[in-house]
C-alpha cells in the first residue's frame, strides 16, 4: 500500500514535458517561422477576391460565381525554434498548398512569411534559392528522388547544387545515410529500395543541407501502416537527435497527435484551431474538430490538467504527486493503485487532485461510445 507521498517527478520525463511546453511558449515570442495573413487563391483574376465579401463565400459558391478557388484563407501562425508544428486537415483543406507557400513553391496571393527574420514573400529569386539551399528543406509524399542517381548521390544533391566540394559533400552525405539507418545501401538506386527506405533517403537528403526548418508534406501517407509507424518513430528519434524545427503536414490525426507539439487544424483553407494535442482533444473549437477527435483514445492524449478537479473538503491530500502535463494513460496505473487521490502539482503549487473515478471516467467513456 503506497500511502506515502513519493517525490514529485516519479514518472520520468513529465517535468521535461512541462518544461518543454514552457520553453516553446517562451520561444514563440521570437519565432523561427512567422506566417501572417497568408492567402492563396487559384484562378484568373484571383487577386480581386481577397478583401471583398466574396472571400467569405463557401467554396462551391465562389467557384460558381468567379471560377476561383480559395486554397489558403487568411492563415497566421508562429513556430518556435525546435518546435514540431503539425498542420492537419482532410484532402482539399489546403494544407499542402499552405506548406508550398512557405518557400514559394506555390506563389502566395497575399500575406507574409518570415523565416529567421527574413521576409520570404518579398525575396528575389536568388535570395529564395539561397534560402531553399541552406535554411529550409522539404520531404515529399512521393519522395521525388532522382531515379538515375544512387542513394548517396541523391542525398548529396542539395550540397552539389550549392557548390560544395566533392569530398566534403560525400562525407556529409554518408553521415546522413548512416543517421537515417541506410548504411550499406549507399550504392543502390531508388527503385531498388522499399517505400519506407526511399522516404529515409528523402529524409537524409533534406537533413544533409543542415536546414533550420524541415517541411514534411504528408511524408508517410504513401507507406504501409506498419512502416508508417516506424517512420514516425524515426522522425521522433531524429528530432531528439538533431532538434530541428519541423512543419509537418498530415491528414492522419493519430500522426498529428503523436508528433506535434502543436497542431493547426484546417478546413476549406481556413484555420479552425491551433493548440497542443491535449487542447485539441480536450477543448475542440467547434463541432468539426469535435467530430474529428471523437474517435481518439482520450486517455492517450489528455493530460491530468484536463481531468483534475479542486479537492473536496476533507479529501485526503496524501496521494502521489504528479505533473499537470502527465498523460492520463501514464498516470492511470499509479492513481488506480492509490487509495488517496493523486495531487497534481506544478512547482510548489497544488493545482488539483485526480482520483480513481476521474481516471476511470476518461478510460471507460472511450470504451462505450
Amino acid at each position, binding site marked *: 500500500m503506497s500511502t506515502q507521498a513519493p517525490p514529485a517527478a516519479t514518472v520520468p520525463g513529465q517535468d521535461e514535458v512541462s518544461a518543454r511546453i514552457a520553453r516553446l511558449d517562451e520561444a514563440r515570442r521570437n519565432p523561427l517561422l512567422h506566417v501572417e495573413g497568408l492567402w492563396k487563391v487559384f484562378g484568373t483574376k484571383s487577386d480581386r477576391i481577397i478583401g471583398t465579401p466574396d472571400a467569405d463565400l463557401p467554396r462551391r459558391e465562389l467557384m460558381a460565381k468567379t471560377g476561383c478557388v480559395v486554397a489558403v484563407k487568411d492563415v497566421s501562425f508562429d513556430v518556435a525554434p525546435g518546435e514540431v508544428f503539425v498542420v492537419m486537415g482532410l484532402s482539399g483543406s489546403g494544407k499542402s498548398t499552405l506548406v508550398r507557400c512557405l*518557400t514559394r*513553391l506555390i506563389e502566395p496571393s497575399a500575406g507574409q512569411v518570415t523565416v529567421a527574420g527574413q521576409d520570404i514573400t518579398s525575396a528575389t529569386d536568388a535570395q*529564395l*534559392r*539561397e*534560402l*531553399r*539551399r*541552406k535554411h529550409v*528543406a*522539404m520531404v*515529399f*509524399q*512521393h*519522395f*521525388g*528522388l*532522382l*531515379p*538515375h*542517381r544512387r542513394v548517396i548521390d541523391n542525398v548529396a*544533391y*542539395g550540397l*552539389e*547544387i*550549392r557548390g560544395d566540394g566533392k569530398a566534403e559533400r560525400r562525407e556529409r552525405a554518408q553521415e546522413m545515410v548512416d543517421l537515417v539507418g541506410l548504411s550499406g545501401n549507399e550504392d543502390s*538506386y531508388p527503385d531498388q529500395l522499399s517505400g519506407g527506405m526511399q522516404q529515409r533517403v*528523402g529524409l537524409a*537528403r533534406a537533413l544533409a*543541407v543542415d536546414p533550420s526548418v524541415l*517541411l514534411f508534406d504528408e511524408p508517410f501517407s504513401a507507406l504501409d501502416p506498419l512502416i508508417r509507424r516506424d517512420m514516425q518513430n524515426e522522425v521522433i528519434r531524429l528530432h531528439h537527435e538533431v532538434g530541428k524545427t519541423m512543419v509537418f503536414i498530415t491528414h492522419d490525426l493519430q500522426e498529428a497527435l503523436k508528433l506535434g507539439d502543436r497542431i493547426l487544424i484546417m478546413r476549406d483553407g481556413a484555420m479552425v484551431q491551433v493548440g497542443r494535442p491535449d487542447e485539441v482533444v480536450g477543448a475542440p473549437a467547434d463541432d468539426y474538430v469535435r467530430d474529428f477527435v471523437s474517435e481518439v483514445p482520450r486517455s492517450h492524449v489528455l493530460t491530468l490538467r484536463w481531468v483534475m478537479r479542486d479537492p473536496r473538503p476533507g479529501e485526503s491530500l496524501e496521494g502521489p504527486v504528479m505533473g499537470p502535463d502527465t498523460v492520463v494513460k501514464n498516470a492511470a496505473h499509479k492513481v488506480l493503485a492509490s487509495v488517496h487521490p493523486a495531487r497534481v502539482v506544478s512547482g510548489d503549487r497544488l493545482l488539483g487532485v485526480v482520483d480513481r473515478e476521474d481516471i476511470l471516467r476518461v478510460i471507460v467513456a472511450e470504451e462505450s461510445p
Partner: protein
Amino acid sequence: MLLGAILGIWLLGWLLFEGVATLPLGRATLTGFQTRLNELRDSFDAARDSNVFLDVVVGGIRDALDAFVVGAQDLLSQAAFPRPVPQVGWLGVVALFAWVTYALAGVRSTILVVLSLLSFGVLGYWSESIDLLIVTFTAVLIAVLVGIPLGIAMSRSRTVTAVATPVLDVMQTMPSFAYLLPLVLLFSIGPSAAVVATLIYALPPVVRITAHGLRTVAASTIEATTSMGSTRTQLLRKVQLPMAKRTIIVGVNQTIMAALSMATIAALIDGPGLGEPVIQALQTLDIGTAFVSGLCIVIMAIMLDRATTAASQRAESERRATRDPRRRRIALGAGAVLAAVAVYLSRSYLWAADPSRLPDLGRPLADVAGTATDWFTDTFSAVTGAIKDGFTYALLNPFQSLLADSPWWLVAAVLLAVAFVLGGWRPTVTTAVCLAVIFGVGLWQDTMVTLTMTLVATVMVMLLAVVFGVWMGRSKRADTAFRPLLDAGQTIPPFVYLVPALALFGTSRFTAIVAAIVYAAPVAIKLVADGIRGVSPTTVEAATSAGSSTIQVISKVQLPMARNALVLAANQGLLYVLSMVVIGGLVGGGALGYTVVSGFSQAQLFGKGLAAGIAIVALGIMLDRITQHAAARSGRR
C-alpha cells in the same frame, strides 16, 4: 442518314452529267499556271548566282552540305581521286562502324552491323549502301543538333510550342513526294537537296519526343529538386535530361528510321544511295535487281533499328553496370587498335579496299529472284490477274468513274457536304480552300483519280485494321505474334514495298494500291488494337456476364468504345496511303504521282510536277482536317 442522302444525290448527278466538266488535262499539256511555274524555275536557275539570298544563304548551305557529303564519300565510299578506291576501304569502314557500334550498343549489335555491312559488299551495292548511310547520318546529325535544343525549348516555353507544333505537323503530314520539287527549285538536284529533304522529314520525331520526354519527367521530382534551390539550368542538366535520356534516344531512333526512308526516296532528286538502283530497276521492270537492292535497304533498316534500340537500352543499364569499368575500357582500347589496323590494311592493300573483290552473290541472287518472279507470274498469272481485274473492275473503276467523271462542281459540293457532316464548319472551310487550290493548279481530274485510289486503299486498310486490330486487342497471343511483324513493317522504308507489289501485279493502279495497303496497314492495325485493348475490362466483363455473345461484345461494346481509336486509325491510314499512292506513280499508279515523277525526269514538265505536288499537299490537308475534326467530334461524344 445524311451521308446516304449525299451519296444518292451524287449518284443521280453522275448519271445525268457523266463526262461533263471533268477538267481533264493531257499528259504533255500544261496550263498557264504550270507554265508559269516552269518560268519560275528558269528564273530561279538564272538568279542562282546573282540573287543575294539564293547565292549566299541557299548557296552557302548547298555548298557546305555538298562538301560534307562528298568529303565523306571520298573517305568511305567513292573513289577518291587519284586513288582508284576511297581513302578507307571496305575492311576499314566495317571495322570503324563495328567499333562505334560496340562502344554505343554492345556486342550483339556489333555482330549484326558487321554482317549487314558485309552483305552490302557481297550483294554488290557497297558504295550505294555507304552513300545512303552518309546521306542519312548527315541529316540525322543536323536533326539532332537542331532538334534536341528545339525540343528543350518547347518543353520550357509555351510560346515556342505554340509556334513549332503546327510547323512540325505540316512537316510530318505532308507526303514526302510533295516537297521534293520545291527543294529542287532552291537547291537544284544533288546531295544537298537530298539531305535537306531528309532533314525536313526526319526532324519532327526527335523534337517531339525530346519535348515529350522532358515534359513527362515526374512533377514530384521537379518540385523536390526545386525546393532544394536548383536553378533552371541545374534542373535541366541534373534532373530532366538524365531522366529523359532514354526517351530522347528513342526519338533519335525514330529520326534515324525516318531519315533512312526519306533518303531512299531522295534518289529521285539525285541523292546518292540505294534508292537509285531501286528506281532504275522499277522503271525498267528489272525485278531481280530491284529485289537485291531493296533487300539491302531492308537489311540496313533492320541494322539501324536494332542497333539504336540496343543503344537506348544500354543507356539505361550501363550506368548501373556492376562490371568493372576498367574491363570495358580495355576492350574499347583493343577494339580501337584493331580498327586502326583494319583501316591501315584497307588503305594499303587492294583486297581490303575494293569491295568488288568480295565474292559476288548479288548477281546470282538477282537472277534467282528474277527467274522466280517470272515463274510465279507465269504460273499464277491467272490468279493474280483475276484478283487485280476483279478489284479493278468491281471496285476501283466504278468508284473512279464516280469521282473523276462527275462534273467538278458536283464532286466539290459532295466533298464539302461530307466535310460539314463529319466535322462541322472549320474543316468545311479548309476543304473549300483546298479544293480551290486543286482547281487552280489545273489538275482536277488527276487529283480525283488519286483521291479514288487513296479512298479505296484506305477502306481496305480499315478492313484489315478492324479484323486484325480486334483480334490482337482481344487475344494476347495474337498480339505477341503479330506485333513484331507490324513493328518490322513500319521500319522498312516505303519504297521497298513497291518491289513485291510490282513483281506480283505488274504496272497498274492496283499495284500502287497494294503497296499503299501494305504500307499503311501496320500503323492502323496497331492503333485499333490499342484502342480495343484500352476498353475497360470491367465493361467487357459486365457485358459478358449479361450474356452477350462474342460478336455482340465486339460490335456493341468494344468497337463503339474504341471509336476514337478507329477514327484516328482512319486518319493515319489515309495519310500513309496517300503518301504511298503517289509514290506508286513509279509503278503505274498514274495520276498525281506519275505527274510528279515526270516532273523530275522531264524538264518541260517540271511546272506540272510542282503543281501536282501542290495538289497532293492540298489533298492531304483536306483529308487530314476532315478526319481530325471527325475524331475530335467522336471524342467529345
